[in-house]
């Protein structure tokens, strides 16, 4: 795929050398590295395709196959440095969307060179109006970046600690083995006891040591635990200093307090007795008693009795009404249909 990309200036060199790297400039055209050097060695500084003046440091290594994409990515990065508001800065979703639309329009205009004067004016206006918010957002972003970096560092530190501990444990083991061996040799050399019994006792001792080792290793390694909070509860580090704490708490309007209103059921029938009174009114004599399994699950006869009574008494006052939709439409359309039938 790389072989398809040709440098528009020297044309041949790209085919021959897939390792050749294309650089892209501010006006969106690509040039291979050697051509770039050539261009600026002569000191001319004009793009071979569109003749706009260029600077050496404006050439970046191309990341995308299509140089137009690279141009857009560049412009976008530049613009978003200025236009860095977030959703929290807008009171409604609609306004946030309008802002995003504005940003996209600006980027689009710059990429395709539509109306550059107006666009630049818009950018300048925006910059003037929103200098402080932009600055604050930049600070917030940098703070967040720093927090992320801290987290990453903490992780790395943990990992390196673990690795160290492991290495240390291994060293310790080796040392101990070495010591045991030396002890054995010394005893064999200097003591008067039987050689076999000395060896046997040593074997036992090493076995006992081996059992202790895993137990010791299983104990949690007490490395340096980084505390994240002071004893009073305040958090250490920048994590505690959210920019929100600098802003004043937004004032809540004085809304009326919530008041509970019990739901009213319209049974459209004579009211059934409430579930609590069913036992007293002797309804349960006429209903199947709940067996032990059902009662364990929380079911009582009152529930089914109450439900049956509600359904029985509900709707008794109902008088027939037309609620079905097509019957209403039929009265309109049937007149139309009869007209059709008459004409045909």
């Amino acid at each position, binding site marked *: 795929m790389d072989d398809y990309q040709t440098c528009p200036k020297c044309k041949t060199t790209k085919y021959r050398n897939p390792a050749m790297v294309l650089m892209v400039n501010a006006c969106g055209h690509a040039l291979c590295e050697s051509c770039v050097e050539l261009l600026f060695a002569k000191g001319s500084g004009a793009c071979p395709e569109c003749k706009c003046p260029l600077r050496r440091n404006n050439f970046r290594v191309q990341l995308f196959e299509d140089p137009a994409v690279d141009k857009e990515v560049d412009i976008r990065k530049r613009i978003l440095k200025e236009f860095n508001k977030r959703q929290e800065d807008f009171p409604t979703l609609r306004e946030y969307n309008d802002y995003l639309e504005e940003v996209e329009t600006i980027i689009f205009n710059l990429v395709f060179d539509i109306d550059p004067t107006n666009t630049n004016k818009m950018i300048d206006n925006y910059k003037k109006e929103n200098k402080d918010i932009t600055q604050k957002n930049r600070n917030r972003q940098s703070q967040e970046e720093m927090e992320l970096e801290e987290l990453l560092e903490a992780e790395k530190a943990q990992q390196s600690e673990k690795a160290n501990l492991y290495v240390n444990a291994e060293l310790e083991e080796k040392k101990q083995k070495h010591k045991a061996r030396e002890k054995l040799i010394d005893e064999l050399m200097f003591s008067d006891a039987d050689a076999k019994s000395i060896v046997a006792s040593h074997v036992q001792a090493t076995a006992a040591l081996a059992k202790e080792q895993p137990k010791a290793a299983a104990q949690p390694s007490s490395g340096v635990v980084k505390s994240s909070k002071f004893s009073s509860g305040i958090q250490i580090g920048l994590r505690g200093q959210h920019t929100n704490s600098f802003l004043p708490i937004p004032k809540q309007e004085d809304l009326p307090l919530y008041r509970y209103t019990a739901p009213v059921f319209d049974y459209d029938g*004579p009211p059934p007795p409430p579930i609590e009174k069913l036992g007293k009114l002797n309804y349960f004599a*006429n209903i199947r008693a709940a067996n032990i399994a059902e009662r364990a699950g929380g079911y009582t006869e009152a529930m089914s009795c109450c*439900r049956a009574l509600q359904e*029985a*008494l*509900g709707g008794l006052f109902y008088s027939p009404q037309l609620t*079905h939709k097509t*019957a209403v439409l039929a009265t309109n359309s*049937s007149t139309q249909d009869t007209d059709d039938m008459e004409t045909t």
Partner: protein
Amino acid sequence: MFATSTQRHFWMFKDETDVSNARLSANIKYISSRGRNMTVIEREAHFLNVIEEKSLIMSYEYQLRDFCRKFHPPMPRYVIGTALHYLKRFYVNNSVMDYPPKEILVTCVYLACKVEEFNVSMDQFVGNLKGDREKAAAIILNNELLLMQQLDYQLTVHNPFRPLEGLMIDMKTRFPTFSDPERLRPGIDEFLEQVFYTDAILIYSPSQISLAAIIHSASTSKENVDEYITKILFSEDQKRLLNLIEAVKKIRVMVRNVQLPHRDTIKALEKKLALCCNPDNNSESPAFKKRMKQSFDEEESFEDGQYPSASSDQVRSMLMGLSEMGKI
């Protein structure tokens, strides 16, 4: 409960004429869309009119009942009630000629089993049907969405069975002078069976229907439960009592007028139906098969009214089964 349900808010009619009007409009819509180039007389001869449709639907309701009665495992009453409700509602909005009632029938039962939590797997379900099971399964699954759409996705149905139980309990507790209301059960069950063949379920609330069942059964056994109604149920609302009495009377009249149409008439109507039905929705017709084959080959999207959801394997087996049945 019923008073807050979709059944009350969207599927109720004022009286039988309203229901017939709705069916009439569905009928007219179908005829005018299919018979655009015919004269009035030709149309009359070719298409079914509303009364014929009604008889057909009633015969299919009987078929549904039979199917459910022979169902294995035994189907509880409320599932049958829900299935009949769905069938009635579907054919209030649509014409019999538009969608073949046999297919809609099994789909109604299947959907009712699901909604009323009477769990039957598809294999068990089609095991109760005669004929090609895979084809039946494909038909049911294809029509299920259509059925739900025509029901406006309002699937909760309030049947008269639970109000009946409630009234029984209430009678036993608050009206002990009437000894053993259980004697009325056979009459009640028969009444409730018959009421599903009328349009009463689309006009009156289920508790009114169950009360009508009790009153009917009581009067046939020469008993009198009026005291219960006047003194205990409606002790405070005398004017609503008149409303209820009227409703009960009308329901009983409707049930009395239920008449199963004669088998020969049904046969004749079915023949006529086979001629004038909508071929796009009838799985037996060549146009449908051609369409299914097209969809299987090209995977195009569909126009309104057709919801094939069968997988390609099912479609293939369906086509194989159909082509084997007869070289059409």
